[in-house]
């Protein structure tokens, strides 16, 4: 088992390599594309069409599209609250990344968590969990497995509920990336598990700067 530093170093190297390839690949299409720490995909996933109910106290179950406010970013995570290791690590890194942004940047960033385990993650459990990390959030929860699968597919995410153990517990495997969605519903960058808060914050700043003061170039978002 390599040390965490080694893992992070490997990850950073891999991200660097991928970022380079992505930058080269993107030259013809968008030469001035911002260089980012996370993964970018070509074409960038369009996720606005996948709507899920937002059970946060502010929304009370209204369906919400995966789309940031104008000129902003929506940081989206698929996870579950019984996850003791991976999910809280990423959510704590996300919070630290938000803390590193300038106030003017931070107010343009929202956070959403989609539960992949709605059976155990009741509305109350999910909101309680998110309140530990953030002051405001979107808590996305559906018991419609097809709607959840559609949303995951749009992002390129997956999950699997394992068999129940002796105590009725079960393991959940899930894609542990954090995604940044823009106001057109386009996934601009994906950070794999273990990306440091600073790397996330740098990417968020770069993407926000690209959108200027929020006078958005909305040509990217084809609504469907």
């Amino acid at each position: 088992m390599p040390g965490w530093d080694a893992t992070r170093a490997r990850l950073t190297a891999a991200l660097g390599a991928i970022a380079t390839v992505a930058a080269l690949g993107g030259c013809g299409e968008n030469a001035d594309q911002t260089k980012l720490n996370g993964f970018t995909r070509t074409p960038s996933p369009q996720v606005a069409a996948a709507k899920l109910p937002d059970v946060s106290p502010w929304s009370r179950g209204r369906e919400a599209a995966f789309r940031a406010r104008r000129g902003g970013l929506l940081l989206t995570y698929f996870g579950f609250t019984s996850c003791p290791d991976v999910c809280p690590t990423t959510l704590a890194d996300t919070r630290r990344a938000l803390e590193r942004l300038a106030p003017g940047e931070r107010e343009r960033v929202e956070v959403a968590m989609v539960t992949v385990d709605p059976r155990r993650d009741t509305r109350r459990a999910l909101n309680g969990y998110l309140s530990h990390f953030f002051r405001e959030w979107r808590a996305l929860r559906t018991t419609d497995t097809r709607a959840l699968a559609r949303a995951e597919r749009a992002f390129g995410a997956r999950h699997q509920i394992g068999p129940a153990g002796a105590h009725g517990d079960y393991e959940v495997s899930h894609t542990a990336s954090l995604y940044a969605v823009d106001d057109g519903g386009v996934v601009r960058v994906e950070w794999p598990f273990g990306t440091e808060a600073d790397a996330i914050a740098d990417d968020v700043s770069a993407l926000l700067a690209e959108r200027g003061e929020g006078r958005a170039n909305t040509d990217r978002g084809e609504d469907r």
Partner: protein
Amino acid sequence: MNRITTIAAALLAAAALGLGACGDDEQNTTAAAEPVTISDAWARVTPPEAKTSAIYMTIASEQGDALTAASVPADIAGMTQIHETMGGEGHGEMKMQEVDRIEIPAGGSVELEPGGYHVMLMKLARPIAAGDRVPVTLTFERAGEVTADALAREG
């Protein structure tokens, strides 16, 4: 003839000494169990209503050892297991699974860390708050039971 007897006697004596020495070694091993060193033990602070948490640490051993079990008092968590999180390369899924043992290489150390090995706490009796000390008892194949205090903090 005499010489042969002398040599035989010497060999026997040496053998007896050798046996004696072996016996002593075993006793020493048992009496002064080869120690493991636990450092930087910490427990993850839990959000409200969370039923699970994790404890992380660095385990070092001079002689080599294996962690085979872990437990915490019942008024903290009803169930404790040793887990490993796996996967997550690129866009991959991550999952946890219980492991029987974690080998600690001789003269080396193993990190229990986010995204890797951890002591998983289940059926939490109460939330774990920043600054709490969680006593975790670790069972090693050679060193026996070792208790360490894990200081609770954010991830």
